[in-house]
């Protein structure tokens, strides 16, 4: 019950007028980036992060996590009303959400999406509340080899659970590690991989990579597809909302199953996107109304939304307790924690309990705020998409580049962001996963330090990764995941995004 006491303390930290206002601002900004094409949760958090450097860490993390919730909700809104997923993780919501909206059930679809998303997020936060102290305590026993094994496990699960070709996942991950190693070597303090360019001395920031890969790359894809918004006008009527709430208990099996899938995929770095597809696939397979799926089946909205948000919130657990983020956005936030001078991992629970529990409490509050705000403001945000793209597109581009400049105030970063934009475009078109690259860039130094310290401990023998029960178990799970592509072929067909080949 000590968690409960800590949580109450956390509410004490989080519940202040200032923090509630930050939550509302964060949620609104989040819905905005979620609705706008090209800006998503990871990118939005990256753009906002440099502006929070001077803030108190608790306030800053509340702002950023609220933005994350808002972005997840915004992404589902455009999926349902415009058939355009604002976020990769809400692609599965378009399958049934858009048909529902076209049949005049937009309010029902939106309400179901928001409520099941809220439920999923709540389950994720409860999971964090119950498990985080335990995981953190367990992780206190970790030393360098165990940490390296956990990082290995994280990347192995990308290979095993991801829908993309394992080769492409490895390329993405390896490039992330290579980019992370440019600049100063944290162990020896020397410089490396700068190839004689002064601009590379301070390394390549993961924030620039996220802005380019997720922001500019995504915009180029959007442009190429030729943007057409066939929006469905939605006026959220209170009576319809209440009626829909009454139908929600009917989907309890789907809700619980999807929340479980989401939590699992969020804690392991499968991420929200994989979770929502997997949950949709399972709901379809197990449903009694299989033929209704794809034509506007409410269960087809509930399942991906619940899993998406459960994964999104539970991705915070490994980030806080182990220092291994479970999604690209969590990776960006973890990078933020390190910039604020906090070291994510078990020691954070001992050194900064106010921060940890304030964050967890704010996740409860933030999600409630988010559900209310999103129901209230959706018509407003939906109208943003009616602004012509010739105006909104360039504004997003400008915001991305200004964001890239504010990271370190280096003109060279503008070129880097542009280059990452091109890479992001190619990677998206060819089904390379981008999350492993971002995760590798954030974790690069930590993973390398863990590896080198392990090597020093063992005098250069790899056998240290099999030296005790704990590290052996983690390594074995990692190997099993990496070599378990059976799972990915099972879901691979379903989760493959619409490749360009399908268009031709």
């Amino acid at each position, binding site marked *: 019950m000590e968690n409960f006491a800590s949580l109450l303390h956390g509410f004490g930290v989080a519940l202040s007028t200032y923090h509630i206002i930050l939550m509302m601002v964060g949620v609104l900004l989040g819905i905005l980036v979620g609705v706008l094409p090209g800006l998503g949760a990871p990118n939005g958090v990256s753009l906002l992060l*440099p*502006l929070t450097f001077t803030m108190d860490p608790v306030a800053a993390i509340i702002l950023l996590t609220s933005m994350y919730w808002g972005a997840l909700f915004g992404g589902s809104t455009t999926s349902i009303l415009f058939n355009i997923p604002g976020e990769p993780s809400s692609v599965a919501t378009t399958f049934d959400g858009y048909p529902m909206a076209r049949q005049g059930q937009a309010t029902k679809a939106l309400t179901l999406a928001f409520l099941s998303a809220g439920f999923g997020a709540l389950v994720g936060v409860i999971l964090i509340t119950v498990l985080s102290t335990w995981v953190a305590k367990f992780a206190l026993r970790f030393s360098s080899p165990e940490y390296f094994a956990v990082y290995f496990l994280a990347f192995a699960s990308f290979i095993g659970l991801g829908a993309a*070709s394992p*080769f*492409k996942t*490895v*390329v993405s991950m*390896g*490039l992330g*590690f*290579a980019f992370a*190693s440019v600049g100063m*070597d944290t*162990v*020896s303090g*020397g410089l*490396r*991989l700068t*190839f004689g360019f002064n601009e590379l001395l301070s390394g390549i920031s993961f924030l620039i990579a996220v802005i380019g890969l997720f922001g*500019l790359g995504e915009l*180029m894809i959007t*442009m*190429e*597809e*030729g943007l057409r918004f066939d929006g469905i006008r939605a006026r959220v009527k209170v009576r319809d909302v209440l009626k829909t709430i009454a139908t929600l208990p009917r989907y309890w099996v789907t809700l619980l199953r999807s929340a479980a899938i989401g939590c699992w995929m969020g804690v392991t770095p499968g991420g929200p996107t994989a979770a929502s597809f997997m949950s949709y696939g399972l709901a379809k397979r197990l449903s009694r109304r299989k033929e209704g799926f794809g034509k506007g089946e409410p269960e087809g909205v509930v399942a991906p939304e619940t899993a998406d948000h459960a994964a999104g919130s539970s991705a915070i657990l490994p980030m806080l307790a182990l220092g291994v983020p479970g999604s690209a956005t969590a990776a960006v936030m973890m990078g933020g924690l390190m910039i604020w001078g906090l070291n994510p991992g078990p020691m954070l629970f001992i050194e900064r309990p106010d921060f940890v529990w304030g964050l967890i409490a704010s996740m409860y509050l933030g999600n409630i705020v988010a559900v209310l705000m999103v129901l209230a403001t959706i018509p407003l945000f939906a109208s943003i998409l009616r602004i*012509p793209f*010739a*105006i909104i*597109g*360039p*504004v997003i*581009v*400008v915001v991305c*580049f*200004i964001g890239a*400049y*504010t990271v370190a*105030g280096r*003109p060279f970063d*503008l*070129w880097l962001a*542009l280059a990452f*934009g091109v890479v992001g*475009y*190619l*990677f998206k*078109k*060819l089904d*390379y996963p981008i999350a492993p690259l971002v995760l590798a860039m954030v974790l690069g130094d930590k993973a*390398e330090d863990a*590896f*080198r*310290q392990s*090597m*020093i401990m063992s005098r*250069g023998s790899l056998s240290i990764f099999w030296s005790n029960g704990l590290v052996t178990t983690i390594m074995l799970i990692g190997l099993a995941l990496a070599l378990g592509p059976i799972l990915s072929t099972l879901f691979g067909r379903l989760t493959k995004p619409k*490749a*360009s*080949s399908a268009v*031709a």
Partner: protein
Amino acid sequence: MISRYSAEIGTATLTAGLGLAAVIGALEFGIGWGDAGPESGTFPFYMGLLVVAASVGTIIQATVGRKGLQSVFLHKEEAMRVASFFLPMLAFVVVSLLLGLYVATALYLAFVMWAQGKYRPVVSIASGIAAAVGFYLLLEFAFQVPILKGPLEAALGIY
């Protein structure tokens, strides 16, 4: 027209090149055992090797499954749309570095609105300037984050 196959091979070659760059760059700093454990080139060296190996894997996979990849990667029409978005963006970066971000923002917005949005020149230019001023007030005053400025701001005495 570019086929999916050539796009796959091209991208895999690019990633292999980046991996190779990491390998060559790492060799300069030693990949053996130094005074303080593995030398600083070790980790990037093996990561580079991994990238090269996986890129080769992708190339082999693409070549074996070549028949399935004959579809079109980029239509001419799509390529035009991407170019019409990318080239102004490239120009925006170049102009930003020469004249600062605010001036570039105004020019870029005005140009895209006029050329692609078919707005009247007056409306486009006014919107561009309004957006630049808006960003200026937001960044320099609300957030107090100075961003890249050019000769125009210097002439106006704004720092």
